[in-house]
C-alpha cells in the first residue's frame, strides 16, 4: 500500500515534469483555431485564462504537413545545427580527448594549475567570456561564419573535464604493462586509453551534442547571416497564429536530441556521476 502511494506521488511529479513535452505533443496535432482559442488569453491579451487540451478536440496533421512541406527554413536551420554539432564534437574529440589524456596520464609542472584553469573556465557562463570571444573571433576574421560558433565549442572545457575523469579511472598497471610490451605513447592512447575511456567519451559526446544543439547565445552573438543560424533560433516570435506550427517545429527539433540522449543514455549516467565525483 505504501509502495503504491509512493509510486502514485512519484507519477504525479513525473507528469508535472513531463508536461511541457506533453503540451508539445498535443499542440503538434492541434489545429490553429483551437490553439488560438486556448491561448488567446495569453498571446492576444484577452480576458480569462489560457487552457490546454491534452487530447486535441479536433486532431489534425496540418502543422506537421506545413512543417514538412512548407517550411524549408526549418530544414536549412536543422542542417546548420547538424553542421555545427558535428564539427564541434569532432573537434572536441580531436583536441579535448588528447588534452584529457595528457592531463590524466602525464605528470608535468603546472598540471594542477592548468586543471584549475579548466575548472574555472568551465564554471564561467558564456556572458562573461562573450566580449573577449567576440574580439578574438573578430581579429581572426571568423565573425559571421559557422567557425565562430564551432571553434569556441571545440575548445570547450566541459568534455575535457568529463573525459579526464574517465581516463583517470584507467589503472596505471595496464598502461605500465603496455609500455613494457613495447607499445608507443600513441598506441597506448589509441589501443588502451580510448577503448577503456569510451564511456566517458560517449557521455561527453552526448552532453556536448545537447549543449550545442540548444545553444542560443553564441549564434545570436556571432552570426549575423540568417542562413547560418542553427535550429535553436527558429521561430523566435510565437503568436496565436503560428502557435501550433511553433509547437510542431519545437517537437521536431526535440527529436534528434532525444534520440542522441537515448543512444548514449547509459554512458551519460556514468559521465554525470564521474563529473560529480571528487578528484
Amino acid at each position, binding site marked *: 500500500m505504501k509502495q503504491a502511494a509512493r509510486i502514485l506521488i512519484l507519477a504525479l511529479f513525473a507528469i508535472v515534469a513531463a508536461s511541457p513535452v506533453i503540451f508539445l505533443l498535443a499542440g503538434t496535432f492541434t489545429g490553429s483555431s483551437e490553439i488560438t482559442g486556448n491561448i488567446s488569453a495569453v498571446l492576444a491579451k484577452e480576458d480569462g485564462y489560457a487552457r490546454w487540451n491534452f487530447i486535441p478536440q479536433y486532431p489534425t496533421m496540418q502543422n506537421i504537413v506545413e512543417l514538412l*512541406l512548407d517550411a*524549408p527554413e526549418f530544414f536549412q536551420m*536543422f542542417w546548420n545545427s547538424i553542421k555545427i554539432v558535428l564539427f564541434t564534437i569532432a573537434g572536441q574529440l580531436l583536441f579535448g580527448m588528447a588534452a584529457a589524456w595528457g592531463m590524466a596520464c602525464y605528470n608535468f609542472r603546472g598540471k594542477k594549475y592548468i586543471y584549475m584553469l579548466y575548472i574555472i573556465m568551465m564554471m564561467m557562463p558564456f556572458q562573461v567570456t562573450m566580449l573577449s570571444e567576440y574580439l578574438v573571433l573578430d581579429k581572426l576574421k571568423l565573425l559571421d561564419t559557422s567557425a565562430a560558433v564551432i571553434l569556441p565549442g571545440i575548445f570547450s572545457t566541459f568534455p575535457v573535464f568529463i573525459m579526464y575523469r574517465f581516463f583517470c579511472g584507467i589503472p596505471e598497471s595496464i598502461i605500465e604493462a603496455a609500455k613494457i610490451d613495447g607499445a608507443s605513447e600513441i598506441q597506448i592512447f589509441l589501443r588502451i586509453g580510448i577503448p577503456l575511456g569510451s564511456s566517458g567519451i560517449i557521455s561527453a559526446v552526448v552532453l556536448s551534442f545537447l549543449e550545442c544543439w540548444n545553444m542560443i547565445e553564441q549564434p545570436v552573438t556571432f552570426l549575423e547571416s540568417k542562413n547560418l543560424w542553427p535550429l535553436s533560433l527558429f521561430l523566435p516570435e510565437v503568436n496565436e497564429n503560428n502557435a501550433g506550427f511553433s509547437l510542431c517545429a519545437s517537437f521536431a527539433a526535440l527529436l534528434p536530441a532525444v534520440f542522441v540522449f537515448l543512444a548514449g543514455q*547509459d554512458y551519460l549516467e556514468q559521465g554525470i556521476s564521474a563529473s560529480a565525483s571528487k578528484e
Partner: protein
Amino acid sequence: MKQKENHTIFWIKAILWLLLVIFIFTIASRAADSFTIAKVSIENPSARKIQYNIQIQGRVVKNRELPVITQPDILIKSILVNEGQRVQKGAVLAKLDIASLNECINSIESEKKILRLQNKDLLANREQAEAQRNRNIARAEQDLTQVQIQNKEAVLLAEKELDRAQKALEKQKTKLYKLKQKLDTARKKNRQDISSILAKKKEQESLVSAFKDDVSVKKKALTAARQTKKSEEKAAEREVHDAYSELSSDSSIDINNISINNYNIQLKKLKKLKAQKGKVCAPAGGIITALMITVGQKTPDTAIFTMTDDSAGLKFIGQMDAEDARYVSAGDTVSLKLADKNINDIHITSIETDESREFLNVTALLPAKMSSIGESAVMEAVQMSGNYNCTVPATAVYQEDSKNYVLVAEVENTIMGSQDIARKVEVEVLEKNNLYAALDPDTLANDSQVIINTDRYVNPGDRIRIKSSGYSQSASLLAHNLMLSQLFSGSLYSH
C-alpha cells in the same frame, strides 16, 4: 554489455533514419517552395514620353443637308425619286401639274390686278383728302387772321376808352384840388362863401368818385378784351394746327406695291417652272434623305425634299469620355480607321459637350467620297507628354489607401541565403496612361528593380524569383502587345 551496445546501435540507427527522413523532406519542402514562390519580371525605371492613344467610336454622316423648295399650292403630278437615292445635280425629282400651275399663275395675276386697282382708288382718295386738307388749312389761317384783327381792334378801343376816362378823372381831380385850395383860402380869410365852396367841393368829390368808377370799369373792359383776344387767337391757332395734322398717313399703297413685287417674283418662278414643264430639279448632287410630299397633294410652303450636298463632303461624329478631353482638342491632327481603309491627317473640327455632360461629341470633316454615310469608324488621336526621367509600366504601379506604390526586388539575407524579396516603395505618380506611369524621380531610384509582371499575387515582403532577362523581356513584350490589342479592341486597361 551486449544489450547496452544493441540499445545504443538501435538509437544510432534511429538517428540515421531521422536524418534520412529530414533530408528527404528538405528536398521536398524546397521543391514545394519553388512552386509557391512568385516568378516576376523586373525592369529599371527608364526615361520616356507618355503617349496617350485615345480612341473615339463613331460613324460617318453627311456634312450638310439641302432643302428642295418649290412654289406652294401646286398639285404634285409625280415623284421620281425615293429616299436614299443618289441624284445628280439637275436631275428631275418631281413633276407638278401644269393646269394647277397655270391656275396658280392666274390666281396670282388676279391678285396682282386687284392690288393695282386698289392702289388706283387709294391714290384718288389720297389726292382728294389732300385738297380738303389744304382747304381746311387755308380756312383756319384765314380765321386766325380775322380773329387777330378783330381782337386787336377791340383791345385798342378799350385802351382808348380807358385813356379817355382816366383823362376825365384827372380833369375832375384838378377841379377838386382847386376847390380845396379855394376852401383853404376862404377859411384863412374867414370868407362868407365857405359853405358854398364846401358844397361845391362835395359835389366835385362825388364826381371824382363817379369818374374813378368809370376808369375802373374801363380797366376791366380792357382786361376782358385782352383775355378774349388771347383765348380766341389760341383757339384759331389750334384750328390751324389741326388743319395741318388732319391728313393721316396711309401705307396701303406701299404695302400693295410690295405685295405686287412679291407676286411678280412668284410669277417669275412659276413661269420658269412652267417653262420647265413643271419639273422640280435637284439643286446639287447628293442623296435624297427625306420626302415630305405625296402624289396628288399640293406642294407645301416648306421643303418638299431634303438631300445631302456632295460638294460639302462628309463628317465623322463620335463620342468620347469627358475625362479624355484633356488629351484631345479642336484642330488636332488625327487618323480615322474605317472598315477597309485608314484616313490620315484629318483635323478635329469641334468638340462639344453632350447633353448628359458625361461625354463629348467630337466632329471631324472628311474629304468627299472617302467614305459612305452611316459607316462605322474609329478615330485615333495620339498625344505625347513631356519627357519623364522615371517611367515604369503601368502594371507595376499599385494603389492602396489612395497612395501609389511599386514593388521593387531587393536582395536580402534570409535563412535560405541571399534571396530576392519584394519591397514596397511609395511613389508619386506624375502622369499615367494605359501603358506607362511617370513617377517622381525623388520617390524611386533609377537603379531600382521594379517588378512589372508576376505570375501570382505578391505581397510586400514576399520572396520572389526573378525571371531571366530574355524571358523577362519576352514577357514584357507579350504583356505590352496584349495591352495594345486590348486598347485597339476598345477595352481600356483598368489597374
